[in-house]
């Protein structure tokens, strides 16, 4: 007989069970102070285990982080709100286009828009994001034009990647968006390398690494945290904890550890945990973390606490593994609704303007979508020339690829 027994983490609720978020502790807004920029890992415990929140239940900014942020210009907040609504319009149109067979695949970011949106607005030209597939909002917030963005999703002749990549695996160097790879975690350590190059070349720029909660289990999460700790480059290590990795509950990636932010402390990387659906909290902490990195105080990790409201991808049906109404019950609410409430509270927005903005943006996206679809879709393919297969494998085409291209008939 043995007393040894395995545990297998389970989500609090499965389909047809009542939603249960009693395990989620939501502290009041405004409780945590703003640490000094040179915050040491051993002093980061309260930030890594707590939850930085700025907006209270009525949308009013409160506490030291609200003070640190100052009153953000209403125009900036309206821009943020419009970017998030634009992302929702893109998600809606493109999810639809996938259902119509016009594109092979799509991934929405519903509920997570505030994180990339507010973060991107704190970056400077020349800083580089190393995104996952669920940070398209970084492109929207960087004012990346819709034509190449949708062109990539349709793999048509507007696709800057000439049809080589699966939809949503964007690459936009000039907009600070590193080439997305299908292999999870790999970009996390590459971001640290990029940041080391920033420091070695003294260009004053920083790198931002992005990873989901599930992929923190990958080897390269460890590789990145350790490398960042050893060499202290200017990198912000973002962890987007949306509670789900496809069908796998976040507890399977986390084990018995407390928070993902706390995990960084073990590497000697200071970390903060933040309400990812609070646009003002994301803005404030992003500003702090980016300034810390740029001023040479080393890496910092941020766990953005949020919820994946939509399906994992167009190939996924979440009703098979979680309650249907879980997203509506998420204790941190919806990032768009919360920023909207704040702006209305400030007298800078209204229900009418919100409805109108949503309709305008949907119209704008629909218009661009039509133009882009005229350049080809999956049902009416007009891809780049098949010779694009052979270009760019190497800087110069070697003889064996030239022969294979000729064999293909070109």
């Amino acid at each position, binding site marked *: 007989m043995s007393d040894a027994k395995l545990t297998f983490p389970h989500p609090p609720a499965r389909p047809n069970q009542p939603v249960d978020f009693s395990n989620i502790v939501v502290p009041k807004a405004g409780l945590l102070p703003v640490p000094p920029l040179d915050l040491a890992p051993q002093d980061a415990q309260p930030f890594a285990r707590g939850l930085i929140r700025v907006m209270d239940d009525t949308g009013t900014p409160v506490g030291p982080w609200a003070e640190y942020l100052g009153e953000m210009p209403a125009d900036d907040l309206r821009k943020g709100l419009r970017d998030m609504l634009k992302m929702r319009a893109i998600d809606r149109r493109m999810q639809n286009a996938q259902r119509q067979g016009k594109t092979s695949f799509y991934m929405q970011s519903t509920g997570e828009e505030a994180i990339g949106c507010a973060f991107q607005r704190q970056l400077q030209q020349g800083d580089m994001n190393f995104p996952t597939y669920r940070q398209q909002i970084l492109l929207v917030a960087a004012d990346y034009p819709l034509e190449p963005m949708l062109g990539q999703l349709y793999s048509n002749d507007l696709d800057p990647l000439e049809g080589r990549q699966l939809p949503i695996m964007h690459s936009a160097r000039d907009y600070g968006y590193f080439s997305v790879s299908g*292999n999870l975690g790999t970009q996390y350590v590459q971001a640290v390398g990029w940041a080391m190059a920033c420091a070695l070349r003294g260009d004053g720029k920083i790198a931002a690494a992005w990873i989901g909660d599930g992929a923190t289990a990958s080897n390269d999460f460890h590789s990145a945290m350790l490398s960042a700790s050893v060499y202290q480059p200017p990198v912000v290590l973002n962890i987007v904890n949306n509670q789900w990795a496809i069908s796998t509950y976040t507890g399977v990636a986390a084990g018995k550890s407390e928070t993902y932010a706390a995990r960084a402390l073990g590497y000697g990387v200071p970390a903060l945990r933040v309400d990812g659906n609070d646009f003002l909290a994301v803005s404030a902490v992003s500003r702090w973390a980016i300034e810390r990195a740029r001023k040479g105080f080393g890496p910092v990790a941020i766990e953005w606490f949020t919820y994946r409201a939509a399906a994992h991808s167009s190939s996924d049906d979440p009703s098979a593994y979680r309650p249907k109404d879980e997203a509506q019950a998420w204790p941190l609410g919806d990032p768009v609704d919360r920023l909207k409430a704040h702006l209305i509270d400030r007298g800078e927005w209204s229900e009418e303007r919100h409805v109108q903005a949503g309709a305008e943006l949907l119209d704008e996206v629909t218009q661009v979508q039509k133009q882009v679809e005229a350049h080809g879709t999956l049902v009416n393919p007009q891809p780049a020339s098949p010779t694009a297969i052979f270009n760019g494998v190497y800087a110069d085409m070697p003889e064996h690829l030239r022969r294979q291209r000729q064999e293909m008939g070109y």
Partner: protein
Amino acid sequence: MARMTMIEALRSAMDVKLSDDPGVIVFGEDVGYFGGVFRCTAGLQAKYGEERVFDTPINESAIVGLAIGMAAHGMRPCVEIQFADYVYPAYDQITQEAARLRHRSNQQFTCPMVVRMPTGGGIFGGQTHSQSPEALFTHVAGLKVVIPSTPYDAKGLLIAAIEDPDPVIFLEPKRIYNGPFYGDHAGKSVPWSAHPAGEVPEDHYIVPLGRAAIRREGADLTILAYGTMVYVAERAVEQAGIDAEIIDLRTLLPLDLATIVASVEKTGRCVVLHEATRTSGFGAELIAEVQQACFWHLRAPLLRVTGWDAPYPHAQEWDYFPSVSRVVAALAKVMED
């Protein structure tokens, strides 16, 4: 001209590039202060500083992943994996990231990076200090794969690899770091100072990637080899008394097919040698290419002498390593047909 071992030649190549290009950076396990477990980077940190030559944690995926980030930024990292046998944790970064970055980003991001790694057996290295994993890289589109066999080539090829705009896997046969090895483990070891290829210019020069070298001209048979097996081939040819042409491939990917084809069309016979295991090894690719390009010139079936399809053993080292006698037997067999 100076006299250099392969170790010194590799070190000289990194010294030249560290000196003439501020973007070049060298790192890996024990590479910095200590100068590498094989001394390939000795003195470089003292000369160029810790920001150019430094030690890393024992994490191959991090070594290559960091290098990819730096290379994408515009630097030219030349990193070391302590033994090729330990490259597997970095295989994801090398094959899915470095090799594909230019293609998948349509040239927005590139990866001018070199991954150096000591390879090959013949040193009683056992299972994890003897492997020859070249076929795991030649199968990956977007990589270049290089393996020198002389100090002169080692330096010129490494400089060319560092200057190359694409990721290069640079395999260094550690059995011939200090001198050529002719397959006779009981015999007296020969230092590079007694070999003409130990003459190495101290300054910058390159040996272009993608070009094979004919080590011995011959009329009767073509031997395709690389790394340590070039010398085993030389000794076997002497013993067999066959007028064989020995081609040292030097770069496996992209392959110098023109040189190979010209030779086999002349000789009509071909034997492929490598230390790596046989099944799906690089020899299979060589045989397929030669068969397709030279079919009507062939006068005998193509043969290969390779390591056995078993993990590299310790005690049975010389029953595993492709010996001169095995090569002699293969040459004789091909000449009979």
